């Protein structure tokens, strides 16, 4: 049974030209899907639709069989820009989702501290967001999305502001955590190899349509060796070609 179903969805901002054009998509529980596509093709919009932040003009979206009409408690979201609250410290920002639902306990704080350590910000708990570098801010946003242990994660280019090393570390961390919690993840990235490395399935969008989709049949868990696998590079190349307009 599918966990998230996007069913023939169309969307346009302010009734102007169509941004999302009859998209269909399906995700099973625990799967990790990546969305690729040129800048401005509608990835973020699709993610917002899937998460219930936007309502489709036509078609429908279902999460665990239920129609999505608004964001759900079970979903975590990392926006394209970090979107932290300037007046809260880093750790309070991470704890925000919790503090909105109940009193923050000591174990919550410990959990937040763990996550911050995981994303490599162990010494910045009490800093304010404006005192962080761009990449540090985006890592705080990631930690915030993870603190609720969501069963569904929507990640919009969470690693775009990170260097190759940190990025690869975090890729592995996210994969591990999601595996552990059997989290379903819809992930947007511009890095083709990142997409292939992470996903069970990748899709390429163009002008609001999904023009290509492919299962990634690499062994799991992925390790650094995966990147040197022949089929890895082949898939990357294929996707590249799709994106640059050639046929798959």
């Amino acid at each position, binding site marked *: 049974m599918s966990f998230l179903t996007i069913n023939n969805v169309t969307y346009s901002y302010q009734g102007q030209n169509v941004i999302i054009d009859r998209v269909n998509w399906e995700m099973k529980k625990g799967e990790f899907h990546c969305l690729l596509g040129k800048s401005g093709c509608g990835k973020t919009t699709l993610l917002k639709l899937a998460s219930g*932040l936007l309502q489709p003009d036509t078609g429908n979206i279902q999460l665990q069989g239920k129609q999505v009409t*608004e*964001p759900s*408690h079970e979903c975590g979201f990392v*926006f394209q820009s970090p979107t932290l*609250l300037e*007046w809260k410290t880093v750790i309070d920002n991470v704890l925000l*989702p919790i503090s909105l639902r109940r009193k923050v306990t000591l174990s919550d704080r410990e959990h937040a501290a763990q996550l911050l350590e995981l994303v490599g910000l162990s010494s910045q708990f009490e800093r304010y967001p*404006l005192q962080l570098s761009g990449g540090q801010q985006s890592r705080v946003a990631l930690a915030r999305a993870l603190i609720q242990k969501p069963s569904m994660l929507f990640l919009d280019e969470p690693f775009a502001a990170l260097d190759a090393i940190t990025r690869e570390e975090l890729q592995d961390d996210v994969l591990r955590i999601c595996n552990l919690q059997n989290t379903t993840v819809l992930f947007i990235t511009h890095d083709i190899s990142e997409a292939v490395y992470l996903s069970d399935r990748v899709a390429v969008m163009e002008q609001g349509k999904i023009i290509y989709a492919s299962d990634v049949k690499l062994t799991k868990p992925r390790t650094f060796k995966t990147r040197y696998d022949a089929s890895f590079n082949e898939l990357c190349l294929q996707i590249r070609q799709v994106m640059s307009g050639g046929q798959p």
Partner: protein
Amino acid sequence: MRNVRLYSLLLLFVLLALWEMLAKNMSELVLPAPSVIFFTMLDGMRSGYLFPHIIRTTLEVVLGLFCGGLFGFFFGILMGEVEFLRKLLFPYVIASQAVPKLALAPLFILWFGFGMTSKVVITALICFFPLLENTVTSIQYVDKQKEELFRMLKASRWQTLIHLKIPAGMPGILAGLRVAVVLAVVGAVVGEFIGGSEGLGALIIASQGMMDTPLMFVSLLLLTIIGMFLYQLVAILEKRWLKPYTREKRK
């Protein structure tokens, strides 16, 4: 910034000197000299004559500000959140402001008696508006991205308010409070104009009746001091609360 103090004092002296000169050529009944005002004040302080008035007015201002401020903040939030209420109530809010309270005196006295209540009510009525208006505005112009974040976190309306809109709108809300603080002083005095036998407003009226202009100016001076003091208090609160907003600026 120590220089500011110096220049501030300098300016004060220049202004006082100018005033003194201006007043020399004028009847004390029209414009008393600062020196005259000073000695009148000293007298009043020494004899203790002024204290009950000062205390009374301060009390009214503080109470009125508290009620009016809370009220303005609260309704500002309500009206900022609920467009329906905003459209429904704003005509009445404006009516309550555009009407000179002085003219409504008899009604206030009728409804709230001759005592302090009517003055507190007038003060509250006068000072709630800037806070309301600024609150309504401040909580409406919130970063769209942050709003989306809160929607994603399924924050209730109330939580979005508490955790996002109010903190983000704090600078604007406090600007409203600062205006309210100063208006509260005027409010209390206007209340006392109407029917009060104690308080600096009553003293102003009484001194006008006796044509004791120096005493009137003493009252005005005391009012200014009360206003300035409260304003400064809010500024200090602001520095405390808005630290994170301005943290970057310090260096």
